[in-house]
């Protein structure tokens, strides 16, 4: 009897799925004529433009509803002989590299145009041409250095507040925990905003940028919330420090991406500006880690590990942003970072309550407010 009942349950779960499949088959099959309305307009997106020796490289993706063939390339609206690899035919969401031999000049603006088989021309403007960074050891070492200055050094400096945080009263400690939550909340919004901006500027409409960002943030939050629960069960509150480091690490990966991409697309001055801003900004992240582990008297190697987990991803980010920039990967990484940070904010607030702090008390409210404010003020530098 029980087997039959569970069989019925399974059937009850499957029948609607079968019906949906039948409905789709009907709509795509013989009945499809009925739903063929309007004109399907082809669309491609030029996702990326690289300037290399005597060539301009454009990465194009078919972001429309129908397959297209790439027919023609132009620079500044002047037709140029070119090549498309691996081939000119692009199925939906397929991408290809268009190689346009062209003696470009450093720092001059260019418009790259691609015409497809129906004669429609799509273009992408580049404000200033700059040589694409070659993945040389020198440049990799330079990015590592930049990542160290932006990620690791400021975090370590911020963690030097640890002895200070260890000696203060519980109320003041709650203030600093809340300050951490405020800092992190700001970083989460910052990362989400950055992800939305990239999706608006460089991502084709077909990716539903805002929904992609929202979905990635939610998935990242839920995944870390779930794994955080498992961790906490074993190691207790020490896990909070680790999770804050992981969250900050993901955020710093995003900062590294921004710096690497800025240097990669040749806006070196902008890159320098970013580096100074992020360095100051990230000192506060060290404080966040220090506050979270201060009651545990952690050993020096543990602190060093936390600093590396939080800071070193800036180096990875700079490599990725500089050598293998992809708008969609950046959006996904930034979204993961935002979700991770939100999860940490959640954990920190829960922890304050567990420690006996009140959310409506002056310590917590002023801490949160100061955290946001400090971050906003240092962010103006970026």
């Amino acid at each position, binding site marked *: 009897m029980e087997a039959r009942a569970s069989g019925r349950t399974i059937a009850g779960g499957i029948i609607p799925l079968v019906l949906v499949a039948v409905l789709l088959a009907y709509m795509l099959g013989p009945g499809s004529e009925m739903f063929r309305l309007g004109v399907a307009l082809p669309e491609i997106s030029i996702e990326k433009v690289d300037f290399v020796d*005597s*060539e301009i490289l454009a*990465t194009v*993706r078919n972001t429309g509803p129908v397959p297209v*063939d*790439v*027919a*023609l*390339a*132009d620079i500044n*609206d*002047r*037709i*140029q*002989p*070119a*090549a*498309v*690899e*691996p*081939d*000119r*035919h692009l*199925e939906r*969401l*397929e*991408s*290809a*590299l*268009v*190689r346009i*031999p062209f*003696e470009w000049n450093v720092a001059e603006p260019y418009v790259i145009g691609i*015409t497809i*088989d*129906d*004669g*429609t*021309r799509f273009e992408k403007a580049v404000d200033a041409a700059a040589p694409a960074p070659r993945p040389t050891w020198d440049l990799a070492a330079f990015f590592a250095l930049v990542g160290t200055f932006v990620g690791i050094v400021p975090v370590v400096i911020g963690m030097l507040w640890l002895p200070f945080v260890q000696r203060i009263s519980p109320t003041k400690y709650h203030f600093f925990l809340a300050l951490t939550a405020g800092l992190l909340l700001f970083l989460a919004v910052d990362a989400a905003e950055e992800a939305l901006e990239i999706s608006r500027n460089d991502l084709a409409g077909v*990716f539903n940028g805002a929904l992609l960002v929202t979905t990635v943030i939610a*998935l990242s939050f839920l*995944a870390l919330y*779930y*794994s955080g629960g*498992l961790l906490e069960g074993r190691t207790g509150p020490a896990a909070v420090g680790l999770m804050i480091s992981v969250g900050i690490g993901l955020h710093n990966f995003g900062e590294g991406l921004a710096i690497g991409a800025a240097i990669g697309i040749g806006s070196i001055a902008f890159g320098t500006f970013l580096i100074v801003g992020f360095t100051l900004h990230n000192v506060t992240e060290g404080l966040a880690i220090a506050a979270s582990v201060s009651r545990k008297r952690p050993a020096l190697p543990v602190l060093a590990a936390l600093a590396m987990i939080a800071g070193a991803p800036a180096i990875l980010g700079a490599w990725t942003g500089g050598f293998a920039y*992809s708008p*969609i*990967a950046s959006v*996904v990484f930034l979204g993961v970072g935002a979700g991770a940070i939100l999860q940490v904010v959640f954990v920190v607030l829960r922890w304050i309550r567990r420690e006996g702090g009140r959310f409506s008390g002056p310590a917590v409210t002023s801490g949160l407010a100061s955290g946001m404010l400090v971050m906003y003020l240092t962010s103006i530098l970026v």
Partner: protein
Amino acid sequence: MITRSRAVLAAVLVAGLSAIIALPMISDAQTERRTFVTHNGAIVETSGDVLDPLYTPSDVEFDPDEFLRNFEYGRVSVSETGQTVREFTIVARDDLIQEVSPGVFYNVWTFNGTVPGPTLRATEGDLLRIHFFNNGSKAHTIHFHGIHPAGMDGVFEPVGSGGRFLYEFEAGPVGVHPYHCHIMPLEEHITHGLYGMLIVDPKNGRAPADEMVMVLNGLDTDFDGENNFYAANTIPFYYQHHPIQINAGDLVRIYVANMVEFDPINNFHLHGNLYKYYPTGTDVVPSFYTDMITLSQTERGIMEFTYEHPGKYLFHAHKVEFSEKGWTGVFLVRGDGGAGYGS
């Protein structure tokens, strides 16, 4: 344990899907290497497809070489009064899709299946009877530049889909005259290709020459009010890819008309030579001796020149934007003696 492994599975699925979207997909990669030549003469090798309107043969249904030296004289008869009568049949269509440049397909509107339409030719004083059939989906007409009765002007007599009309008038004055559809929106009907040239020869004729027709035109393939391509006789870069062969010492005569829309001017620059220019072709005495003539909309004329030295000579719009979008060609002057025009 089960829940954890499921979570891992889900994470792997999410990561895998992201990777699929984030990484460029690779499809039927080719192993064959191809090469192409850049504007600077550099040779570039690729594993993919070449996008090159200059050196890629296109499968165009329209042959600019054939069009270049083709003149339609009509079905000739003599009236009771002794007047030469020339009858032409012109059919308009607006449903053809043609490959106008390698890999680019455009909905051309045509007179007798081509853009430009056929080059009609008559002698001053001939009676022209043009039987016009509109096989298009929209109304069309033929409006001739020149002198004719009001009712033959092709403006106030729209010919609906499936309709017909007989244009009848005396050829004149002597010269080169464009014809085109005159249905509103006019720009749309012209830019899609409904135009051509009527040449009216003087009764005594002109000196024997290697004669050719160049209708300067543009194609706005994405309908943004700007031409994507320019050309002499429709196909961009065609005569650069297929040089026009002429002979040193021969008199060459080009009947040229500018049918470019959107851009206020077009021009014609000849390398290594100068030409005698007869504006509108209405006179037998040239007005200019130059290598550069500027033409506004439907401005036209006759150019005459002779090359002394064999070799390759460029001709193109000196509005360089136009030449770099297709309006450029080459004369290949042969020195081994020719038809003896003009000698």
